[in-house]
């Protein structure tokens, strides 16, 4: 299990790095999908099979497909790839890189200082437990999430409508 975890983690980081550096949108999205699948594996090894399954179904299966769909709709050809390459000059990376390094150092400190989690049971938390929690103490949050999704639906519909300009 531990081996799988670290393997998946390495794949996830590598694929993510590739995803944000590609110039071809579809390639980047494929790397992103790989990264998400690897994260799903990580989730599985963390004892969250439900989250892992949803990660695949919704992230890899729906969200990224939606991205691909949009990229294909806009299908801009090789000109954009050249432009992307022009955008990504090495100097662009300096400030974000430094900023991120600082943040990373800080985050590592935070994580390192976290007190040891008391008695973490090693067994997986299945969909039933999640469901009980969802529709028990988190019922209001579920309602809010559904409202959010409805708002997203309406918003996307409204924005996507082609009105006469």
């Amino acid at each position, binding site marked *: 299990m*531990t081996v799988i*975890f670290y393997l998946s*983690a390495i794949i*996830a*980081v590598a694929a*993510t790095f590739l*995803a*944000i550096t590609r110039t071809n*949108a579809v390639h*980047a999205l494929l790397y*992103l999908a790989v*990264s*998400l699948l690897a*994260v799903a594996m*990580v*989730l599985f090894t*963390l*004892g*969250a099979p*439900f*989250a892992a399954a*949803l*990660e695949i179904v*919704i*992230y890899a299966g729906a*969200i990224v497909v*939606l*991205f691909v769909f*949009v990229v294909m709709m*806009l299908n801009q050809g090789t000109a954009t790839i050249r*432009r992307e390459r022009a*955008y990504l000059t090495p100097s*662009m*990376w300096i*400030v*974000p890189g430094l*900023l*991120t390094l600082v943040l*990373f150092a800080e*985050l*590592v400190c935070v*994580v390192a200082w*976290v007190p040891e*989690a008391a*008695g973490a049971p090693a*067994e*997986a*938390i299945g969909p039933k437990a999640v469901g009980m*929690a*969802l529709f028990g103490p*988190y019922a209001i*949050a579920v309602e809010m*999430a*559904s409202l*959010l*999704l409805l708002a*997203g639906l309406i*918003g996307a519909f409204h*924005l*996507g409508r082609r009105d006469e300009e």
Partner: protein
Amino acid sequence: MTPIAPEHAVALAAVLFLLGLIGVLVRRNAIFVLMSLEIMINATGLAFVAAGAAWGQPDGQVMFLFILSMAAAEVSVGLALVLRMYSRFKTLDTDAADTMRG
């Protein structure tokens, strides 16, 4: 099943999050920005699940679910905006959409 050290899982989440952040900061193409945002959101969810797993509670996965639904809503509106942007500016360069600058 040997438990994974939660710090390592959280550290993975941090790395992924920061990679996404770099993506947001570096890329100019709106689609890549959105992608990077998705990476960041996903990393947050991973951190929640890792914390939940560390404490043996389902709450982490519950939060992951909410993050998931938020990401879905975000991406649907975001991509619709990208389409609108493309039809308005004929480019996906986020810097082109700066007509509201001060």
